[in-house]
């Protein structure tokens, strides 16, 4: 029973993943076409659209912005580092057979 639930859950997730993947591919290709197939131009537009790059008119604006982005990177690292640590430090357990 449990296996059947797991299999169907996996199937749903897989379909969801394929749908998202297809949507991303279409969006990426369409974006590239709009940017006349220039990857760097697409990246530039993406950075502007997501607000990573924006004009700042005062020093306070500039500092608030860069510190905000730095903060997000650091938060991401606080999540990524323990995961990475756990991945690298895979516990190799030796199984001993009782005699």
């Amino acid at each position: 029973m449990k296996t059947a639930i797991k299999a169907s859950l996996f199937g749903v997730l897989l379909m969801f993943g394929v749908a998202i993947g297809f949507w991303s591919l279409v969006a990426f290709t369409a974006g590239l076409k709009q940017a006349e197939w220039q990857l760097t131009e697409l990246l530039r537009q993406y950075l502007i659209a997501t607000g990573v790059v924006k004009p700042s008119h005062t020093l306070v604006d500039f500092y608030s912005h860069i510190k905000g982005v730095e903060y997000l990177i650091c938060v991401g690292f606080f999540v990524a580092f323990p995961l990475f640590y756990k991945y690298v430090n895979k516990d190799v357990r030796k199984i001993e057979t009782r005699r």
Partner: protein
Amino acid sequence: MKPLSGNVTDSIGRHTVGGASSQRLLDKVFLGLSRRDYLSQFLANPVNWALSLILAIGIPLLCQRYLFGLQAISHGSQDYPWGVLLGFGLFGMVPLSASGFLLSTTVEIFQRDDFRPIERLALLNGLLGYFFAVVFLLVDLGMPWRLTYPMVVSFGPAAVLFLVAWHVATYLSVQIAEMVPAVSEWADWPGLKRFVKKLTLGLTIAGIILSTLHQGALGALFCYAPAKIHPLWIAPEFQWLHFFVSSIFAGLCMVIVVSWLVRKTMAWRCDHRFLDTLDEITLGLAKGAAMAMITYLVIKIVAIAHDQEWLLLISGWGLYYLLELGLGTLVPLIIFAYGVRHRRVTMVRWGALLAVAGIVWNRLNTVLICYNYRLHQEIPYWKELWVVLTVLSFYFIVYRFFLYRIPVLFEWRD
């Protein structure tokens, strides 16, 4: 390198036995071989022929440099003042020599005895790396008799170079002291060894302080010319941190590479303690290097965010920067993570080699390629490259001399 023949190895085996006061110094220097045996071994090794060829051309070039000045062998100018001599010799060699303080901290402070078999190799690597960085500096600067000026004649406490000079001098002294136990075992000076052993903890702590400051100071040096270096390679607030953190994995990777070469080319000189534990130690070092690498990558990204340089990343220089960061750090990071998790030691070793090349590439980019990037591109004169090769050959010869003789790869049986 050609392995030594059986009877020669037996003679050398006797040389590693302690209580050797009866052995004359020359016997130890010649590894217990007769002069004829030693010479025949020397001539049978093709590496020695290659080294002889390099030195045959390189030594006259060195003489030319000292007789006629640096311009005789280098294109160095006000636009590109550092060249390959310092770009590779000083800025490239120093991070690769961070191994000494890293492994002595691991073993002496954190008491990780599982890394003890490789501690002396890491210390020797650090000592020789720093020493030859000074040799490269002396070839570039000339006038070696003025080496002591920042110490006793003319202080310059406002200059970062003053800091670098003092750090190198004091840290080199600390590293020499850390290698004294190995040399005193070889020379049969037990009193000296006992005395230095008492200082080990102090020397290790001094090593941590000096090396940390020194690696950072080399980065801080670039804050002298922030407008000349491409913005992606200079981040004044973070430069010392980039240099320091990258030196951590550079030093660890260098030890992985050197120990790999040693095992491949002079297994006869290693004892079982070293050979049996090397794979496990390699994985341990790679694990540490991977942690440093991911931290380094994040600090690099933070520096880009701090200086708001995202748009530069999609320029030509930006793609070159991403290539350097990708091939030199990200790919080795992935290789290390996968290799450590799945216990693929050979894969980890290739990853370490890539990381070592990546660090040297980063330093050459900062010092030479992306320095005054708006002007013409500096193409080094062949004589300068050959002089670098010559000093590297001396480095190799001295490294091999010590590894053959003093107990670095083997325990002194006393």
